[in-house]
């Protein structure tokens, strides 16, 4: 099943207001340090990076590591400057790539 992502961005905000953005994505975040019951190493399968662009400009980016739990929940703040689109981008092992968008109206 495809990865599912949940984005929580306020639909409207006052110009200059600090807004909270919450993102949650489904991912096993397999560390690569575990072994199966047959003794085989379970290969690493994690999300390696996440970024957010606000009308094309990168406002937040982070690198993820094996110690991060499954289904990473990333939340951050930004200043509502203008109406437009927030684009979210996750990249991971085995060609994992998800993009999501959210609209915001700034008054």
């Amino acid at each position, binding site marked *: 099943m495809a990865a599912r992502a949940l*984005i929580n961005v306020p639909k409207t905000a006052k110009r200059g207001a600090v807004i909270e953005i919450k993102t949650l994505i489904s991912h096993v975040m397999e560390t690569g340090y575990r072994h199966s019951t047959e003794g085989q190493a379970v290969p690493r399968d994690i999300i390696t990076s996440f970024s957010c662009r606000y009308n094309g400009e990168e406002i937040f980016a982070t690198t993820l590591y094996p110690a991060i739990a499954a289904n990473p*929940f990333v939340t951050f703040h930004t200043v509502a400057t203008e109406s437009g689109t927030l684009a979210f981008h996750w990249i991971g092992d085995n060609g994992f790539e998800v993009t999501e968008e959210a609209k915001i109206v700034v008054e």
Partner: protein
Amino acid sequence: MYGRCPPKRNAGHKAGHDGVLVAAVALIAFLHTNLALAEIPLDQRRSGYDNMSAATKAMQDDDTANPATLSVLDGEALWSGKAGNEGKACADCHGDAAVSMRGVSARYPAFSPAKNQPIDIEQRINLCRTEQQKAPALAHESRDLLALTAVVGKQSRGMPIAVAEDEKTKPFIEAGRQSYSRRQGQLNLSCQNCHDDNWGQKLAGVPLVQGHPNGYPLYRLEWQSLGSLQRRLRNCLIGMRAEPYAYGADEYVDLELFLMWRARGMTVETPAVRP
């Protein structure tokens, strides 16, 4: 060797016997107190939610922060997706889950006339799959079965738990109560020892909760995934070093039924988050 040696001192000998007697009387008194303590008064029951940190509560309260929502979304896709030789989806018979499944999982485990015994919500979904959709039953704790129980369970959120307590279910509630209060495993503990007699204390630094099943299937941070009540029961059984039953065993269903009866009237939080 040493244990078999008779005590050397005469005075000590007699005192030793008295000590054993006092200890035995104290132990019997303790066991009786334990029996008397059984059953939490209805107005003193607490959801495991009350013991959680503010951060974990916030995670459960906000659907966009609750990782179980990811499974609910999977479940909604499965609900409307066609499956099996009949090519039918859940939605083809039941329509909108928000309407048809409202309050359903608050009533489960429920008595199945066909099986002549109670069945839990996982078994009910699998019955639909094998009999209506002609699809293979989903494995316990599989991603799809958890997702479907989550989407069905979510429709009872905020409603009171109300399993049937009638002539048909009573013997099974009683069987569940028996296994709840039976000491078992290498640690010789019963469920009751922790969850009725010592709730509110701590076990290995973790708050000991009353153990009400009001949020299943739930996202457990320790599991990093959604899990069923049977998985949680298995967890407790292993903790007291007892042999867990196989998934889907009648003993689990009886226990689930008893626990739901014990939590009657409490609010369903499905899909909940627990630490």
